[in-house]
Structures are given as structure tokens and as C-alpha cells.
């Protein structure tokens, strides 16, 4: 019989499990029920009190709860996190390990699998199968979808965020079994987080809407001039009014990196597509983007898609977007911003 371990970790509060962790708990519960497997959940937290609070939120999950806690785990770091997760896996004697594809666990999961003599597959978007475990993931930057399986154990599966509902059980006092960790010598000190220097936080993973700015914003307009400053005001104005997250095509980001002060708030972190991210949002609005497969790749996991483009024959729109408005994005977004401010829609 399989033993499934779900690895989780708390957020910056030190006691609340991350949303991605809770989504993985749901996946673990579903898989355990399907396979008739034993379920355990491992928690990594900076204190025993934080671990207990996190354990309480999982009390109704019907799982064995294990916890690793201590100041060393207050921040994400390869050596300490790998040691913590290795200890949890050994304590649970897990044959299948599910972990959220957070930056914290993505950094260490493969190493832990290797230490345990196991194997790992990452960016899993679905887990199916009745008799065997079938994992779905994408290859070639979300252009080819495959279903795979392994007989070897332990098998680690890193789950992409947004692929399962977050577990939300009734909290009840609970205490996870404390698992001891032999801490390695630490050569790395984490000094904190740094936001983009441009001062405007434009990436909002939890936003309902992704707004994608393409290179057309900084091209010459009908008057023969470039209106980069106006473009920047319109885009930032829209983000403020709509609370949307900002994505960009590579060509537009690269313009900023080459020293042109076109849209100074854009960085490579905004980039979506082949060499950028593939975010998950309920809706997406593209403006001034042009039709290339790399842009489509960045939109793979967007629910409803609309676009504003001057090119009615734009390749990416046909069959990819739900609605395409053939219009000048400068004019449209100015009107949209005015309406949003008037109506306070979001």
C-alpha cells in the first residue's frame, strides 16, 4: 500500500500554511482516497507554536501530521529546507511525496528525492489514474502535454499552483509529531526580500485579471511619435484601478533592459511566454501584442481572454482569444480607466 506524504510550509506569518500548500493537501487527500493509501502531512514552520497553528488548520484532513520547526526554518534556504524535508520524508516512510511548486520547495525537492534514492517529476498539473498514478505535465514550455507514470519509489511530484482547490477544513486543536532534524552547517544567510527597484509592484499572482502589454505600446503612433510616457500612465492607471497583474512580451521588456526608458516599471519578472512565466489568472486582457507562439505559451493557463489590437489578422488572436477588439489601445484604455474610476468596478 502506498504512503502519501504532502509537504507543506507556512507563509511569512510563521503559522499560516501557504495557499499552494493547502492546494497540495487537497491533491493528497484525493489521491489517498483513490488509491486507498495512508496520508501524512509534513509541516515546516519557524516555531513549534507556528507548527501547531498550522497543524490545527489540517486537523480535519484525516492525516497523520508531522512537523519540523525551529528558527533555522524561518527563511527559505537550500541546506536547511532540504534537511527538514528529508527528515519528514524519512519519518513518514512515504512512497509518494507531493509538494507545492513554491519557490521554496522547487529549490530543494529534487535534492531530497535524490537523497532518498527516489525520483521526481515537476510542474504536475493533474494527478489521475485508479490503479496506477498518472501525472500530467507540460513539456516544451507548455506546448506539449504528456501523461506519465513511474514504478520507482519514492516518487516526488511537485504540483503547480492553481491546479487544485485549497483545503479548507474546520480548524481544531492539533499537534503534529515533532520530527528532529540534524542541521547542516549553514554557509548561506538570507537577508530578506527585495521588490523591483522601480517602486511599483505590478506582479500580483492572486489577481483575477492579467493585463499583458505588448511592444506596440512603444511603437510610433498615428501622429508619427512615440508616446511611451502616456503608455506608462495608461498602463499603471489601469493596474491601480483594476488591481490586475502586469505581464509583458519579451520584446517590450528587452527595450527597457537596453537602456531605453520606455516603460521603466517593467522588468524581466513581468515577462510571460517562452522565457518568462506562465501565470494562472481567471481573465486576461492583451494590448498591443502580436501573434507569436511564445506569447500564446504565456497565456496557456488564462481562463477568459480578450485582446485589443490594431491588427485584425494578428495570428495569436485567431483561435486563441475569445474576443478581439480591433482598435487603438491608447484610446480604449484611456476610456476604460475613466470608467473604472467612475464606477469603482473592482
Amino acid at each position, binding site marked *: 500500500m502506498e504512503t502519501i506524504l504532502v509537504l507543506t510550509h507556512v507563509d511569512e506569518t510563521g503559522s499560516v500554511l501557504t495557499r499552494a500548500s493547502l492546494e497540495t493537501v487537497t491533491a493528497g487527500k484525493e489521491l489517498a482516497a483513490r488509491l486507498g493509501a495512508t496520508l501524512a502531512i509534513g509541516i515546516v514552520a519557524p516555531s513549534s507554536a507556528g507548527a501547531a497553528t498550522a497543524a490545527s488548520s489540517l486537523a480535519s484532513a484525516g492525516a497523520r501530521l508531522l512537523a519540523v520547526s525551529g528558527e533555522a526554518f524561518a527563511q*527559505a534556504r537550500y541546506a536547511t529546507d532540504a534537511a527538514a524535508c528529508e527528515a519528514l520524508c524519512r519519518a513518514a516512510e512515504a512512497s509518494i511525496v507531493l509538494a507545492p511548486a513554491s*519557490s521554496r520547495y522547487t529549490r*530543494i525537492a529534487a*535534492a531530497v528525492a535524490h537523497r532518498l534514492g527516489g525520483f521526481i517529476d515537476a510542474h504536475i498539473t493533474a494527478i489521475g489514474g485508479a490503479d496506477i498514478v498518472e501525472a500530467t505535465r507540460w*513539456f516544451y514550455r507548455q506546448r506539449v502535454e504528456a501523461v506519465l507514470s513511474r514504478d520507482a519509489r519514492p516518487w516526488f511530484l511537485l504540483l503547480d499552483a492553481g491546479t487544485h482547490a485549497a483545503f479548507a477544513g474546520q480548524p481544531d486543536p492539533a499537534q503534529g509529531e515533532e520530527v528532529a532534524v540534524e542541521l547542516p552547517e549553514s554557509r548561506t544567510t538570507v537577508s530578506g526580500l527585495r521588490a523591483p527597484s522601480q517602486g511599483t509592484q505590478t506582479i500580483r499572482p492572486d489577481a483575477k485579471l492579467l493585463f499583458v502589454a505588448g511592444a506596440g505600446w512603444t511603437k510610433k503612433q498615428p501622429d508619427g511619435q512615440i508616446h511611451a510616457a502616456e503608455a506608462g500612465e495608461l498602463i499603471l492607471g489601469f493596474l491601480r484601478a483594476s488591481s490586475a497583474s502586469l505581464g509583458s512580451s519579451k520584446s517590450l521588456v528587452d527595450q527597457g533592459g*537596453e537602456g531605453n526608458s520606455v516603460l521603466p516599471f517593467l522588468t524581466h519578472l513581468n515577462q510571460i511566454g517562452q522565457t518568462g512565466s506562465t501565470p494562472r489568472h481567471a481573465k486576461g486582457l492583451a494590448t498591443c501584442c502580436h501573434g507569436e507562439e511564445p506569447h500564446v505559451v504565456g497565456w496557456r493557463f488564462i481562463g477568459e481572454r480578450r485582446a485589443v489590437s490594431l491588427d485584425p489578422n494578428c495570428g495569436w*488572436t485567431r483561435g486563441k482569444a475569445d474576443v478581439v477588439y480591433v482598435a*487603438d489601445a491608447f484610446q480604449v484604455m484611456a476610456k476604460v480607466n475613466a470608467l473604472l474610476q467612475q464606477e469603482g468596478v473592482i
Partner: protein
Amino acid sequence: MANVLHIVVCAGVVPDPLQTLEPVTGPNGPGLKNEMVLPAVLDPWAASALYEAAALAAKNPGSKVWLVSLGPKAKLQQVMMTVAQKAGFELVPIDGPIGGFPDAHSTAAVLAETIAALPGLDREKLLLFGGWESATRGAGVTLQLVGERLGIADQFQGVDEINLRDDGSFEVLERVEGGKHQVSVCLGAPAVLGWATGNLAEPRNNPQIGMANMRSLMPALQKAKTAKLEANGLRYLSINLPKQQRTTRVVKDLTPDQIAAELVEWIGAE
């Protein structure tokens, strides 16, 4: 004071992102249709790692860059003709299968074995570079596995910046959730850095660098050892292209006011 670094960059070759890909299953398992004739490029994130490595080595005299690349010899030769013009390195080619479907653990084992055997490599000065994910398998695990096999206890993924200090320690910026960077300070090599885009633009072709690389590149390709990758129990049950074809409504006859009203209503709808 300059630090002497031994930087090993792991980088594969991938189909040009603008190519149409069609999966096929052959006698040797899954692959891409006409894979060997598709134009190829150096893996984009690994290319960022190579350019960062070359820049870091240039700032620290006495440092050296190796480029370890696993792929069909003919493909490696084709791609290296371009890459060799951009950054100085010693190529360490491994003749093996192309594509994203071979098992990452097998790939990592071959890479680690090759790196461990590099003549002249000082493991105490080693910075292991690569892309944080490939554009083929895209799992983001291979470099981590290589580092673990080499016994490197400090690893960083999604790196956009490294600032080397005089004492050999370095500050590193890793991408984390919410469009932020985690800032860490590591006491120094050895370490693994899986690069995201970094901050450097693609270098211009430099014929002098190209000539210098060419002297060692062709002999290295001729001597490339062949690697066979084990499946490790990995089985593909299906491989398909996504079938997301949408019915697109093209709206050509609305004024900006009308479009804005429609968009605002759509944005606000649950």
C-alpha cells in the same frame, strides 16, 4: 582583489521557440517530429547563465568557463557555431539524445560524472551554472540533481543577479513569488546557481572570441563521449498537443467608448 572562479555551465540545445512542434512516439520512446532537422538554439535560460558566467570570469582574471552540453553531436556543432562567437568557454560535449523526454535523473548523472572528471577543475572554486529550467523538459530539477551529486550544499534557483565580493562571498538574488527577489549571501564557492534571465543582454558576435573558441571546439566535438540515458522506470502514457481552439469574436465596428464599456463590464463580472 579578484577571485579565481571555475565556472561550469550546463546548457542543452532546444528547438528554436518559433518552430511548430509535433510530438511523435517512435521505437525509442517519445520525441518530436523531424526533431533532428528543426533549427536549434542554446537553451534560453542556460544561455543567460553562460553570458553571466563569461562576464563574471572576465571580471576575475584567472577564472575559467566550461560549457557542458549533452545532445546529438551534429546539433551541438550547429549551435556552437553561433554561441562560440559570443562568450569564451571550453566546450565539453556529450553525445546523447535530444529533447525533453529523457529522464532528468539520468541526464543529471551523466552531467555530474562528466563535471567530476574535468581536468583542472578545482571543486573548491566551482560555481555550477545553468538555466533554472530548460525549454524542453522544463522541470527545473536537473541542475539541482547535478549539484547534489557533486555534494554542493548551497544552491540557488531563479537567479537574476550575483554580486561577488572581495572575500569570495557573494550576494545572490533569486526569484520568489509575487515578483520579488530573495536576497542571500553565501560564503563562497562551491555553489549551484540556476539562472533565470539575469540582467545581461545577449552579447554581440565577437570574431576574436569565436576564433579562440574554435581552436578547441572542433577537437572537443570529435572526442565527445557517448551517453546512454536510462529511463528509470519513467513511462509516457500519452503525449499530445493542447486542443485549445477557441472561437474568436473579432470586433471591428465599435467605438473606443463602446469597447471600453464592454471591457469594464467583462472585468467586473464574476
